[in-house]
């Protein structure tokens, strides 16, 4: 019943809407001669209240938003008063719009009314910062190993004859090479070449490592052999990664932790050929990895190394995530934390809860256990002897200093370290107590607790948390100690150094994914009949395709924002090519492909986003429009006045998606927002519900025309994604939104707390520096790192 009621109402409303539009267009311009305030009192106050605060029965919301005065006047003329639209038009509408805008509607007016200026609030570490920080805190006591990225992808491999377990027979005829990925079917031959073949092969190998030796060059004999692979693997997402080894033989896998095999299938037993193990990894970090593979007397030999990252699909670990060089073990916190507040569009740590406090306790215990278990390694202290106590004490003091991001006073050394070491029964218990007290301390958990004018150490922290979500490194701390983090130029030079660190790139990638509203991998499922083959694996590949594109832009020296909007190429692999075109072989790795010349516009038409902002069978111009308006243009959109279910496509078999959406949002109550949303979303109608390019829908040609009325008053007209992209690339609104969002992600404080002009100044900087995202990032840090907090009361 209700549904029918709604449908009927909508149709009637749609008809009414049309009449209203006609009448307002033909009404005469009115000028009552009253002031804006008088008109407001007369016509508006009964619903909106004396200061726009609303009234419970008629308009129970604050009247506030981001429309310009002319746009507001136009809206009033068209729709107000609600019971008699057309009564307030022309100069009257303009006057009352100006009054409303200036008195309470605009952002500035709201801030003025609240007598509240955005301020830098005391913040705790966000969940991500806590995790990254404890990883780097422990890692700072280890030799991190080479931080370079390997030029070759894959794992180092050593193939050797093997008789039984551990006994190499005769001379060493093992071969070393780099395998791009671990997916081998050796069949019944051994990959150990004869001496003759080896000599020939080694000639071919130099200087670049040969990745695959064709099996035909191997001497066929059913000898026992082993292969050792080692290197590191880069995690893309944070969370539990399931590793899978498929083998007809025996294998062991270690990831991150050399002491405990993640998969121990050293015993081949019965028919089992698949082994699994799960480990938590942090996004963007590399983890050491090692495999031992043995072929004994089994008739055949094969092995594959797969994984299922969080939100991803099970796949052979792709070559570009593997490197042949090893990195140190790193600590990964397993304790779950309650998610951070994201109500302002970015994660921030300005509130706490009991659940959070408990998580910090459990987290501290977890770290303390790890430190106690690795004490000799981390502190460099011998297991016993006179040196031990002194080394452990020094370790504890350093641990506290690094955790607090500044040197300890003598009094603090006594409190956090000396008292614990004196009081406890044994050294291990004492160290655990130090770790617990330090990690529960507000000096660790809060950023800049207790200093109003930032000193060099505060600046170092701001830089490190801003660019890395983690602790200052040794360089930053020594710069702070030397008093070299005082000027803007000093800050900028550090920021530029830090921007080259992989952690900064990962943070930027995470930001871009958030900017595109896909930082949490969304569940995307499509109607299998309409989109055969569009499965979980394809969704995972599409995400990879987007990430590769973002990384490509970030890593280039220009880091040009506009490339995000106008790039024609797509990263596709064989599986995606099968669906989207490009003619790649079925097992082709990811590569840049142009599939629709002069049709695609970077992220705007990326199939991952197009599929995400769509229903299972049809596109959703509304979701796309909201993404464009709210996300890219930074507009404020109220939630719909009531929850509305989309009109079912099959109730309107003859309508195109565009026509159906237009019908549904025809009512006057909808047009306030949908007048902006729909014409933006329609411009992407060429891309279907999985983001394939199309020229028609239901036999009708696609109409991808749209427009956008900018806050400046300019109306931009578009026909399709390329027009839209060109506009977005030059629009100041896009720039302001991007700058503000990046600022919030980096600094985690409201941008206006750093001065009302900050957004505009940064947006101007961005435009005048070739839209270089990396430069914008370092500029944001230079702008914010020295800003004082309000003084303590």
């Amino acid at each position: 019943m209700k549904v029918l009621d709604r449908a009927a109402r909508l149709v009637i409303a749609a008809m009414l809407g049309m009449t209203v539009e006609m009448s307002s267009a033909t009404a005469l311009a009115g000028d009552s001669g009253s002031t804006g305030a008088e008109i407001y009192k007369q016509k508006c106050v009964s619903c909106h209240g004396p200061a726009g605060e609303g009234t419970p029965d008629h308009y129970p919301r604050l009247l506030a938003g981001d429309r310009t005065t002319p746009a507001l006047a136009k809206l009033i003329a068209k729709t107000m008063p609600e019971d008699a639209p057309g009564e307030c038009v022309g100069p009257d509408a303009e006057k009352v719009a100006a009054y409303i805008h200036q008195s309470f509607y605009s952002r500035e007016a709201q801030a003025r009314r609240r007598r509240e200026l955005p301020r830098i609030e005391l913040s705790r570490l966000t969940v991500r910062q806590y995790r990254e920080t404890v990883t780097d805190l422990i890692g700072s006591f280890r030799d991190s190993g080479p931080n370079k990225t390997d030029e070759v992808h894959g794992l180092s491999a050593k193939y050797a004859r093997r008789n039984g377990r551990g006994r190499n027979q005769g001379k060493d005829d093992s071969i070393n090479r780099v395998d791009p990925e671990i997916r081998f079917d050796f069949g019944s031959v051994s990959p150990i070449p004869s001496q003759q073949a080896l000599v020939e092969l080694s000639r071919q190998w130099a200087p670049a490592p040969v990745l695959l030796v064709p099996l035909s060059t191997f001497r066929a004999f059913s000898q026992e052999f082993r292969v050792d692979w080692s290197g590191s693997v880069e995690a893309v997402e944070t969370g539990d990664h399931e590793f899978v080894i498929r083998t007809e033989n025996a294998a062991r896998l270690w990831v991150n932790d050399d002491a405990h095999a993640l998969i121990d299938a050293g015993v081949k037993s019965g028919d089992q050929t698949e082994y699994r193990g799960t480990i938590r990894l942090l996004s963007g970090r590399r983890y050491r990895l090692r495999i031992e593979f043995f072929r004994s007397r089994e008739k055949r030999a094969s092995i594959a190394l797969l994984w299922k990252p969080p939100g991803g699909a099970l796949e052979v670990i792709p070559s570009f995530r593997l490197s042949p060089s090893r990195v140190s073990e790193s600590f990964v916190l397993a304790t779950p934390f309650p998610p951070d507040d994201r109500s302002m569009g970015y994660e921030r740590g300005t509130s706490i809860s009991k659940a959070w406090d408990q998580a910090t306790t459990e987290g501290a215990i977890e770290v303390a256990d790890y430190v106690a278990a690795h004490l000799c390694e981390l502190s460099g202290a011998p297991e016993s002897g006179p040196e031990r106590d002194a080394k452990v004490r020094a370790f504890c003091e350093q641990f506290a200093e690094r955790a607090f991001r500044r040197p300890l006073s003598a009094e603090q050394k006594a409190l956090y370290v000396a008292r614990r070491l004196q009081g406890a029964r044994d050294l291990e218990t004492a160290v655990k107590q130090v770790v617990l007290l330090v990690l529960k301390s507000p000096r660790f958990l809060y950023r800049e607790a207790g200093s109003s004018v930032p000193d060099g150490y505060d600046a170092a922290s701001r830089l490190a948390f801003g660019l890395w979500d983690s602790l200052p490194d040794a360089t930053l701390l020594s710069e702070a100690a030397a008093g070299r983090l005082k000027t803007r130029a000093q800050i900028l030079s550090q920021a530029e150094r830090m921007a080259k660190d992989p952690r900064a790139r990962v943070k930027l990638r995470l930001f871009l994914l958030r900017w595109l509203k896909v930082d949490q991998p969304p569940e995307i499922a499509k109607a299998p009949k309409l989109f055969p083959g569009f499965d979980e694996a394809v969704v995972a590949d599409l995400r990879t395709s987007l990430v590769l594109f973002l990384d490509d832009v970030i890593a280039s020296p220009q880091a040009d924002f506009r490339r995000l909007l106008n790039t024609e190429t797509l990263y596709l692999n064989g599986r995606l090519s099968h669906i989207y075109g490009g003619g790649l072989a079925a097992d082709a790795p990811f590569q840049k492909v142009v599939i629709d010349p002069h049709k695609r516009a970077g992220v705007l038409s990326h199939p991952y986003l197009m599929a995400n902002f769509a229903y299972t069978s049809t596109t959703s111009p509304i979701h796309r429009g909201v993404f464009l308006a709210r996300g890219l243009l930074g507009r404020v959109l109220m939630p719909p006045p009531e929850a509305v279910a989309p009109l079912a496509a099959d109730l309107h078999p003859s309508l195109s998606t565009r026509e159906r959406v237009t019908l549904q949002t025809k009512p006057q109550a909808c047009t306030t927002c949908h007048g902006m949303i729909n014409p933006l979303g329609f411009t992407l109608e060429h891309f279907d519900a999985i983001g394939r390019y199309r020229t028609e829908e239901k036999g009708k040609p696609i109409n991808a025309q749209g427009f956008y009325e900018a806050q400046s008053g300019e109306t931009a007209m578009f026909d399709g994604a390329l027009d839209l992209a060109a506009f977005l690339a030059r629009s100041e609104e896009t720039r302001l939104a991007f700058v503000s969002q990046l600022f919030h992600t980096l600094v985690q404080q409201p941008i206006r707390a750093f001065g009302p002009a900050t957004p505009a100044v940064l947006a101007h900087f961005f435009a005048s520096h070739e839209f270089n995202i990396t430069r914008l990032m370092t500029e944001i840090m230079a702008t914010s790192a020295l800003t004082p907090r309000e003084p303590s009361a």
Partner: protein
Amino acid sequence: MARYRNRRAFLRDLGASAAALPFVLNLPSMGFANSQARKRRLVIMFSPNGVVPKTFWPDQEGSTFTLKESLKPLEPFQKQTLIVRGLCDKVRGDGDNHMRGMGCLLTGIELFPGNIQGGSDTPAGWAKGISIDQEIKNHLQARPDSRTRFGSLEFGVMVPERADTWSRMVYAGANKPIAPIDDPYQMFRKLYGQAKDQEALKSILDDLKDDLRRIGSAVSSDDRKLIEEHASFVREMEQELKSGQRQDLGHAVPEIEPGLKHQNSDMPKLSRMQIDLMVSGFAADFARVATLQYTNSVGGARMRWAGVDEGHHELSHNPDSDQKSQDKLTKINKWFCEQLAYLAKRLAETPEPGGGGSLLDNTLIVWTNELGKGNSHTLNDIPFVLVGGGLDFKMGRSLQFKHTAHNRFLIALANGMSCPVEKFGNPRYCDEGALTGLV
């Protein structure tokens, strides 16, 4: 050589005074304790490489018998001892006798074909089924009145750090071996880690509150609200720590002594530590089933402390005519028997919480081996020496069965633990059901 990852003080003083008294004083209501079924516990202790029959098996059958050299340490417990001879591991198939002796000992079923090559026979993998201790544990854990925190605890002493058919006797199921924990510090963390963490937390609370006060006074009044809220959470934690302190643990956390390593010379100390932890775990009712695995099948411990310099396994290959070796093997088995006697003693000294008698009155220890005799590698006459009153068996006897499948004994163990099993392992060896004559 591996080193334990953590060093802690170990049970310094875990006699009746430290472990038992606190919970004797903390006894729960005992009103109905005697009307309920008593607790039953089962411990399976393993040592490798067979025994020397002529110094091991008593000559007599029945309730009057003399303990020979290997079993002398059991004299104080002779009335609580039941010696079972004539049980044979009849399971055949892939793997050599050491492998099958181990893998089929508690599972009663064949090994899968695999890649582990022994000294003879075909290579093999893991056992094809669950082991009897896990079967019993699953049964107990499925019932609220016998459910415990861990169900079962798998102890080891000097088990080599590699997973293969020789080093695993406990199986959660086919192809699912369970590794024994042979690091007493790791076992301690498993049993008492939470309690230790709470102690540590309590010790830092005052300083933490001071810290929050100091920071609170240094920030602006707006920011101070957040710090005050934080301080209130810390006070709540303090309250919870106080009220919850002794709730889940019936007795004091044992104190431990640091520094033991996974090395042969520390084996006697490691053995005692593990036994002490097992007893305190039983006193806290953490589990009703436990296994205690010394080294592994083919294990090569060098018991210099018992006057034996050679490795256990190499000695076990020497012929019966080599009297020196026979004497040394007897010493080795006697040392294992001392461990069994120490366990029995510790259980006997510890009162049963909530009931009369001692822990030993409600615990059956079964000491067994993967072989009957080392130099012949026979799977006949697998040693089964039982101590304690846990299963209503009639103790104080020496029994002689005739070439009987050990599967039937495993069934009897399960039934004795109120776990209704009719066949276990390969049904071919279970024809006549549970072994009779034990009760």
